[in-house]
Each structure stands twice: as structure tokens, then as C-alpha cells.
């Protein structure tokens, strides 16, 4: 079924919560209000014309500093300063967070993408775990790396990082903690090493190999 038609059906079902449909880019997507996402998901799966029975990918996004022509302050990789301590910056992220759902239907063989935008302070999105169980781990990972809370999720623990890790790494304003459980996290600076190696690598064929 054509993307536009799917969006009409969805808008019919959840009314004002369907905020808009944008299809100039390579892939079209629908904006949905956060509070109606669970209902929309259930509808998309159970409606026999749509039948989206596979949630391909649930990606959390931090929209801070995004602008169309690449001038945004999207880069927030803070490395290590010369003395090995992690760099710090006073930049505080202000954009809002978002979740993108990419859906696919095995019978109808069509795809659909849904996006949700949530403010940074109150980053809460209702869970879709009872519609597609695969969302369980995807949502835990989004909470772990981006700090988007999924209300209604049975056990929203951190997925990949340690239970007591502070901060959410994939946020643009994330800064490396100085140390973690008394282990100093610093990049050993190797730029000034006086040592000249005994044998620099040779360029010929593999040394010692014959025939």
C-alpha cells in the first residue's frame, strides 16, 4: 500500500495525534504525538489492510544541534587533553529527543516509518512492548544510551552499560566521567615517546617466508 494512503488510515484512527506526513526526503515518515504512540502501533499491526507484524528498528535520536546544511553543532566527541584527562565542555544540549519506528509487513510487503518527538526535560514515551516484544530490548537500549524513559516497560534497566553508570553516552552534550568506581578513565598520551624502535617494519615480501 502507498505511504500516503497508510498515513490517511492512521490519521483516521488516531485523529489529531497524527501531527504530519513528510515525504520529500528519500524515505517518508509520519509524525505522531507521543501519548498516542501505543495506540497507533496496535492499530498498524492489527488493521488487516496494514498488518505491520515486524518492528524492524526502533532508534532513539537526540535532535540537539541538527540543521539541514551540516552547520549544526552536532559533533560532541570529546577526546582526551594532552595530559590524558578527558576534555570537558560547558555546552548544554537544548534540542529535543525523538524515537523512530521502522515497520515492515511480511504479508503486504510494505514499509512505514513513524517518528515521535519528546522534550528533553520530560523524555517519556509510552512503550510498544505489548505490540512487538522485540521492542523490549530496543527500548532498554534507547533508555540506556539516550535517556528516553519508556513508561509501561516491565524492567527498564540499562541494556549495555553498567547498572550504576552515570549519564547517557549518545547524547550530544555527554561528557566522559573522570573515573568510574575509582578507576581513572584517561587516555594515556603517547605522542611524546622518545623510544626509537629496534626494527621498523620492512616493505619487502613477508620476512622469513620462502617459496
Amino acid at each position, binding site marked *: 500500500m502507498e505511504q500516503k494512503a497508510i498515513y490517511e488510515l492512521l490519521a483516521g484512527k488516531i485523529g489529531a495525534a497524527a501531527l504530519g506526513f513528510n515525504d520529500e*526526503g*528519500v*524515505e517518508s*515518515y509520519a509524525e505522531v504525538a507521543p501519548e498516542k504512540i501505543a495506540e497507533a502501533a496496535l492499530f498498524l499491526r492489527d488493521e488487516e489492510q496494514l498488518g505491520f*507484524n*515486524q*518492528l*524492524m*528498528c526502533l*532508534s*532513539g*535520536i*537526540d535532535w540537539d544541534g*541538527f*540543521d*539541514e*546544511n*551540516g*552547520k*549544526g553543532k*552536532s*559533533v*560532541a*566527541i570529546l577526546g582526551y587533553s594532552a595530559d590524558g584527562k578527558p576534555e570537558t565542555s560547558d555546552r548544554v544540549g537544548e534540542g529535543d529527543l525523538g524515537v*523512530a519506528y*521502522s515497520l515492515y509487513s*511480511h504479508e503486504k*510487503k510494505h*514499509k512505514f*516509518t513513524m517518528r515521535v518527538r519528546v522534550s528533553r526535560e520530560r523524555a517519556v514515551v509510552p512503550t510498544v512492548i505489548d505490540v*512487538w*516484544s*522485540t521492542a*523490549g*530490548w530496543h527500548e532498554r537500549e534507547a533508555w540506556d*544510551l539516550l535517556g528516553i524513559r519508556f513508561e509501561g516497560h516491565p524492567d527498564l534497566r*540499562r*541494556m*549495555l*552499560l*553498567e547498572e550504576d553508570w552515570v549519564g547517557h*553516552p*549518545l547524547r550530544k552534550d*555527554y561528557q566522559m566521567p573522570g573515573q568510574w568506581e575509582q578507576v581513572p578513565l584517561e587516555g594515556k598520551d603517547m605522542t611524546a615517546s622518545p623510544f626509537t624502535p629496534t626494527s621498523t617494519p620492512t616493505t619487502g615480501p613477508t620476512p622469513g617466508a620462502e617459496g
Partner: protein
Amino acid sequence: MATEETKMNSGWADQDQVPGIKSELMELNMGPQHPATHGVLRLLLETDGEIVYKVTPVLGYLHRCAEKIAEGINYKQWVIYTDRFDYLAPMCCNHAYVTAVEKLMDVEVPERAEHLRVVAAELSRIASHLIALATFGLDMGAWTPLLYCFREREVILDLLERIAGGRMLYNYMVPGGVRYDVPDERWVSDVLEFITMLETKKIKDYNQLLSYNKIFIGRLGNVAVISKQDAFDYGCTGPVLRGSGVKFDCRKDDPYSVYHKFDFDVPVGMGEMGTVGDCWDRYMVRVREIEEACKIVRQALDSLPGGSCQAIELKKPVKVPAGAAYSRTESAKGEMGHYIISDGGQTPFRNKVRSPSFCNLQVIEKVGVGQMVSDLVAFVGSLDIVLGEIDR
């Protein structure tokens, strides 16, 4: 093994059958250093004797936050990181990332580059399935198939080393084509000769040695059955989904690159040695997929067109217009997808990696309950997970 029934007849744990004796479940840590967990996976098991009552996987031991690094370096530099996701089939991961970037850019990849990509990806798929066979046999106690499969994989590594330079981590594909052309004219005939040798002699050996061995079938038939509904619900893809009887393959149903030109069929689990969707089906789907991959490689090499193999000059930077797109390809373990949001610059704004083993492993929380410990090992082996792409 129905879970309720096993709980009933060995229901020692819940109620105290013998008054005065208090019995509780034994908390067991399987991993992260454990020979049967295919990498640094840790399974918290609650068992009563042999029967497992609760499985909670603990992940993150191999987490390198590659998605954060992606936001720091440009598109071409990140290709080498995709090798490190599924390090058993790195070419398939290269292919997934590069297809995703090209979907955003409007670049027309030359035919020759597409053919070389398909050949490299299929060779990598064969190597990955060989390892899946080998480690699965090892989990079941058969030591010898491991060495035979590795002997075949070495030949593939040599072939890929001659064309891409690396043995295991290649950085071979670039958004817009491939970095190197065919090294010398003997390479194509060497690949074809290897393919015929693999198809005619080796697969028959593995089947006789392992697949149709009664002990192997006894260990895998009717064990850890994933129903079709569970497979859809938990987003399983690849051999795990096909093992449960669903005929779905991205290369066929959502064709990308030049797969529409080749004809190959998609093996599906038929439940020959028990119910549909048991460990043996998933294993046998992989064995048959090796033969299909051989067919694709032969067709791709026979119709290798001439011409250049890069659309963009290797020295020039890769700029991607603004936009967001999810694109997926069929990697050895399942559907490998990238959701890339670009803001027009040289570095991606967000690059979410959807890895197949991450979704396939989640089924263990539901299907793993009620199994015996040795069946759990068989189940993890049949899922063929790689921790590199789970923890990213």
C-alpha cells in the same frame, strides 16, 4: 519441551514437597567467560537440577559505542568499524552500511562494483556459516568438524586477502563502489574452483559426519522450538526466522544491489527431524544456504561486467545530502540494517545499527525456560549469535 509440563513433574522448587526441607532454585552464572557462549555473553540462570527456570542475558561486555564514534568521523572512515560488528561475516556488514549511505546519496554504483560486492558478501556468508557449523558441532561435543570447517574457511580468507588486502577485517567497500578491482585473472578461476570443491565434496562430508548423525539429531530434534508467531514477535530474522518455516529473505523479498539478477532459492525449515523451528532446522537452513551462496557466487562471477569499480574518486570526500533513511540487507546472521540521519555534512548526525543477533538472542528469555542446561547450550549455538554486533 513444554515448559508447564516440565515445571509440574519436577516442581520441587516451588512448594516444599517434603515438610521441613526448604528447596530453592540454584542461581548459576553461565558466562561471560564460558566456552559455550560464543563470545562474552553472560546468562543468569535459575535452575532446579538440570531444568532451567529463568534465563536473563546480561550484555555489554563488548560495548565500544561505535554509534558515538560514527558521529565523530566521516562516512568513509567509519566503514572499518562495520567490520568489527559481525567479525565472522565482515563483508556483509560493509555491504549493509554502504547500501544505507548510497540510499541517502543519489549516486549510481557501477555494475562491476555491485558484482564484486555480491561475490565478496557471499564468500563472507559462506565463511560465517562454516563457523556456525563448526562451533555448533563443538558445542555438541563433536571436535572434528570444527577443524574441517576452518580448513575450508582458510581458503576463503586467502581469496579475500588477495582482493581486499585484509584477512578478517577488510574495509573493502566504500560508499560509491569498491576500493580494489580483481587482483589478477587467476583469482576468478580460483574462486570458481573453490566453489565447486565445496559444493561437490565438502558439504557431503559435513552432512554425513554431523547433520545426519543420530546422536546429533537426538540432541537437536524437538529442542527449543521457536514458533512462527514468536519469531515475528521477537523480530527474529535470517536463518532463525527461516528455520521456523517463514520463507523471507531480504535478498529476495526486498532486493537491493544486483541480487534481482541471480536466481537462487531460499531454504526453509521443514521440521524433518522433529517439529518445524527446532534447533536442527535452524542448523540445516544454514547448511543449505551455503549451497545457495555458492550458486550466487558462480552466477555473479560468470556475468562479471567490465568498467570501473568506483563511482567517486577514492581521494574525494563523501558528502551525503540531508535526510534520514532505514535500509536493510541480508547479512549472514539475519537482517542487518542502518538508520542513518545525515545533516548534509561529511559526518552522519545519527547512525543506528540494527543487528540481527541482538533481536535473535531476545527469544532466549521466552524459549529458554524449561530447557535442560545442555539444551540451552544447543539453543544458543543454533541462534549463532556474535557478541560483536549485539554489544556494538
